[in-house]
């Protein structure tokens, strides 16, 4: 037993040190491609850290969104900024300003103040506190689901999730309104093509599984949505484009469906129970399942659209 706990301590220590080292390397690295790869590695180790902290829900989200999708977004942004640079305009002169000494000192002082504040807050916490977990456990039967994390996200604090959906939609609107860049020609390749053909059904299945299992075990709409968007990213990488007849209204409908359903249910609950997003306990399970299913599709489509960048319709006009 003693040897096992020593092993765990050294593993956790190594994990923590690697996280700090990777974060530092990703920040100071001047080669942006290397920095992005380090960031992805950081995300994967962060997911492992959440597993060690017994938070599998966050680990899933971190692996799928933090490492996977953000990594893909950063890589595609990098590839596009290189296209701009090749055209004679430079976007990436920011490091020059950051290297000025007084600027560094300013950043260091601000970060020290933030770190001191955070440290003070953490040290001020009571050493053993259950937080709100006892209250969640006591009300879990009323929530309609068996997984406390899903109960908090989709029932007790559903308002937060509603706002998160809206933020995602706003992000895409902002990207679309920027107009976007000309797409690079996608490489067609028989191996990539057959890999995509094999993986897409698997990804859709995993996404549906994560959505369904989220009611009682780690999983849920955001994890399922990001797996679904991974399928979209793969399709885009393999050169597939949304047919124009789907790129107009059907695409926009899929994008706003999640937020729209959320708002509709919020209004309905406001009318019937008098409180925003307070479901009647008998129907709570069904309502959460509907919400999560629609949200999964919207999240998946939104994230994949973010990866593509410009609005598909806009591109056609050019």
């Amino acid at each position: 037993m003693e040897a096992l706990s020593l092993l765990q301590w050294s593993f956790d220590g190594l994990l923590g040190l690697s996280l700090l080292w990777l974060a530092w390397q990703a920040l100071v690295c001047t080669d942006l491609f290397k920095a992005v790869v380090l960031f992805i590695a950081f995300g994967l180790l962060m997911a492992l850290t959440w597993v060690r902290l017994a938070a599998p829900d966050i680990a899933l989200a971190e692996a799928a969104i933090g490492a996977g999708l953000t990594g893909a977004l950063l890589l595609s942004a990098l590839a596009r900024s290189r296209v701009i640079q090749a055209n004679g305009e430079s976007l990436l002169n920011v490091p020059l300003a950051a290297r000025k000494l007084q600027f560094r000192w300013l950043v260091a002082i601000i970060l020290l103040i933030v770190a001191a504040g955070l440290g003070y807050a953490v040290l001020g916490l009571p050493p053993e506190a259950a937080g709100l977990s006892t209250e969640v456990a006591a009300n879990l039967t009323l929530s309609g689901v068996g997984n406390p994390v899903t109960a908090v996200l989709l029932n007790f604090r559903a308002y937060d999730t509603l706002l998160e959906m809206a933020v995602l939609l706003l992000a895409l609107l902002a990207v679309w309104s920027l107009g976007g860049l000309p797409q690079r020609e996608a490489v067609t390749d028989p191996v990539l093509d057959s890999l995509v053909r094999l993986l897409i059904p698997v990804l859709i299945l995993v996404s549906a599984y994560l959505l369904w299992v989220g009611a009682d075990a780690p999983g849920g709409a955001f994890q399922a949505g990001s797996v679904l968007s991974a399928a979209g990213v793969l399709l885009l990488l393999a050169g597939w484009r949304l047919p124009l007849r789907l790129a107009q209204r059907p695409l926009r409908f899929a994008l706003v469906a999640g937020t729209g359903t959320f708002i509709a249910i919020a209004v309905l609950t406001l009318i019937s129970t008098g409180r925003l997003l307070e479901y009647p306990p008998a129907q709570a399970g069904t309502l959460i399942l509907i919400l999560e299913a629609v949200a999964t599709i919207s999240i998946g489509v939104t994230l994949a659209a973010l990866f593509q960048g410009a609005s598909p319709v806009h591109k056609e006009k050019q």
Partner: protein
Amino acid sequence: MMVSDYLAVVVLILGAIFFLAGTLGLLRFPDVYTRLHALTKADNVGLGLIVIGLGITSESLVVAGKLLLIWLLVLLAGASVSYLIARAALHKGIRLWKR
């Protein structure tokens, strides 16, 4: 400990050796193609051995089946991705290493 536990330990250590060798190759080999060669050994054989080791000690067939599925997916993705990396490197004009 039962016989199967000892067997699992042996297979797991063997898998770890493959991962160690793959990592050494990734760090020490001279060019991208030879590094990919080293890496795929760790991913394919090393992970396969670890999956076998964990499968022996897993409590149910369902868990063992899930582990096997993970290995198959990694095989598929690893083989395709290393091909894509090698092809991109070749297109970029990175030459093969010669002694």
